[in-house]
């Protein structure tokens, strides 16, 4: 800050006058110049030289552009490779250094992110609309020309993987969810999102194996470029120009079709308690045929967390948990390209979890018997529809689900169809879905104080 006394009065006046006479030039992102977008929330998709490209031209001055790669933990040939590949995103490439990538993006006001889900690895850039060519070139370069040097692995990537292992070990909720996935799907989708602390990383993970995985993962048929707030024609043109270095490969990354197993696992843990009850769910909307909207309605009906303030809400689990202070329950539906997992997760004190989980199984049984009020059902359908639409509307979730849908050979996320299919769920369908869950094998994983936490058999679930 320049203090008032430091700058003479005349200088201040001169400065002020200058501003009045000649308004400061609009920065390059002058708002008036952009907003060419339509307000449609559906994605247009195209195929540019073998690469799937989808975009949604939402009006606004910013763009988010993502390369969604079919290289999530499900597809990693060795444990930890996905996390390693994620760590190498935006590191030194053949053409420029990691430092230059960072500094240039900073100067353009862009943000660079890399993250992964169980099925996809996402490299994302958010930036001002007119910088599309720069960031498309950057993403194209990152996926085709990264150097994967050994010193970067040892100095920058490996410490972060070790930290994420420690974080996972300390987090009972994540441990329980990972354990539930492992029980439900064994390999493939059952692989933990981050390598567990006992995974022998040095045996599997080094710059060489990561480089090999990158060569098979970053291939034309294996990636989708998805953008929000970019013109489809512009995007196709820049992708065609800058993604030429991406190899096309014959041996695609693959994983056997998911099969649901179910079972029970109990892990003793000193810091906190978590219990996950999981049931086979529905695949995601983008997968096409195997999508079952009634599962998302069931998730909304079971609920747990209230979506409005000052009330536990209508959901069955919230009511069940309210009589056990200290326990919190949430129902989440994880949907993947060919399977899904409906999880009910309890956290809190072991005693409260024990009580709340017993109540939760009772309410699931009551749904299966059809003793659900018409009003609750209507509320659940409305909430499920809202959630599905909101997910499609929000930039990040929409990018990932559209990209994942495209690389798995499905369709982009089409928001209006999702809404319609959720509306079509009847009370009868919901009842039969709940009944099927209870008849099949459940997945139960308990982490924490095992003396108190219930067994599946005590809850009345089959494993």
């Amino acid at each position, binding site marked *: 800050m320049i203090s008032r006394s430091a700058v003479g009065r005349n200088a201040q006046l001169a400065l002020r006058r200058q501003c009045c006479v000649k308004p400061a*030039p609009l920065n*390059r992102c002058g708002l008036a110049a952009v907003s060419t977008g339509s307000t449609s929330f559906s994605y247009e998709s195209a195929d540019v030289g073998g690469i799937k490209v989808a975009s949604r031209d939402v009006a606004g001055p910013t763009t988010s552009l993502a390369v969604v790669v079919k290289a999530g933990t499900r597809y990693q040939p060795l444990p930890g490779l996905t996390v390693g590949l994620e760590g190498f995103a935006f590191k030194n490439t053949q053409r420029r*250094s990691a*430092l*230059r990538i960072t*500094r240039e993006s900073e*100067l353009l006001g862009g943000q660079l992110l890399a993250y992964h889900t169980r099925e996809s690895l996402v490299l994302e850039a958010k930036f001002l609309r007119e910088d599309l060519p720069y960031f498309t070139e950057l993403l194209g370069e990152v996926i085709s020309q990264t150097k994967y040097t*050994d*010193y970067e692995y040892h100095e920058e990537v490996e410490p972060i993987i070790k930290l994420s292992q420690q974080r996972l070990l300390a987090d009972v909720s994540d441990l329980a969810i990972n354990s539930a996935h492992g029980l439900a799907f064994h390999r493939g989708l059952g692989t933990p999102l981050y390598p567990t602390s006992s995974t022998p990383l040095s045996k599997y993970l080094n710059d060489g194996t990561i480089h090999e995985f990158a060569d098979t993962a970053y291939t034309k048929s294996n990636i989708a470029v998805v953008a929000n707030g970019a013109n489809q024609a512009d995007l196709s043109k820049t992708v065609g120009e800058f993604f030429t270095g991406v190899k096309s490969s014959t041996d695609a990354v693959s994983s056997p079709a998911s099969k649901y197993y179910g079972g029970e696992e109990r892990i003793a843990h000193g810091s906190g308690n978590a219990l996950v009850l999981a049931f086979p769910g529905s695949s995601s909307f983008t997968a096409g045929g195997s999508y079952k909207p009634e599962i998302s309605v069931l998730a909304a009906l079971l609920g747990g967390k209230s979506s409005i303030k000052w009330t536990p809400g209508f959901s069955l689990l919230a009511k069940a948990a309210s009589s056990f202070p200290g326990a919190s329950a949430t129902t989440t539906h994880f949907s993947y390209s060919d399977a899904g997992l409906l999880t009910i997760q309890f956290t809190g004190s072991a005693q409260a979890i024990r009580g709340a989980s017993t109540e939760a199984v009772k309410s699931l049984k009551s749904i299966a018997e059809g003793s659900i009020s018409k009003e609750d059902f209507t509320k659940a359908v409305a909430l499920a529809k809202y959630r599905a639409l909101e997910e499609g509307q929000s930039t990040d979730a929409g990018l990932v689900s559209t990209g994942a849908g495209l690389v798995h050979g499905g369709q982009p996320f089409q928001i209006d169809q999702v809404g319609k299919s959720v509306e079509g769920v009847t009370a009868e369908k919901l009842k039969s879905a709940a009944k099927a869950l209870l008849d099949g094998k459940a997945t139960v994983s308990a982490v924490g104080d095992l003396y108190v936490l219930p067994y599946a058999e005590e809850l009345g679930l089959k494993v």
Partner: protein
Amino acid sequence: MSAPSLANAILKRPWLSKIVKPIASWYADAAGYRKLGLRADDLIPEESETVLLALKRLPQQEAYDRVFRLRRAFQCSLSHTLLPKEQQTKPDEDYPYLSPIIQEIEAQAKEHDDWDAAVVQRKA
């Protein structure tokens, strides 16, 4: 760490390098480190952040061999002996294994400084 050197200027001119090369080879041999089984890059002083980092970045085998050569040379030095002829470093074994890494680190540091001093000029 790298001292100013005329090597590049000489190598660029074939006629000059033809004259200088035999002298250089003779000099390197006469310097005597090869008789202790060392390589030229073993003589780079370690006492700098750059070289320490470069040593960390050496491949495992190279790092092991380097320590072996240094210890063998210390022994020779203590006992005032030279290695037997067949164990001495041959001219073709005396290649730079550390200086490329050092140059890379120096280039990175220079790039960092350049970016810190970068001046942004907006297009009008």
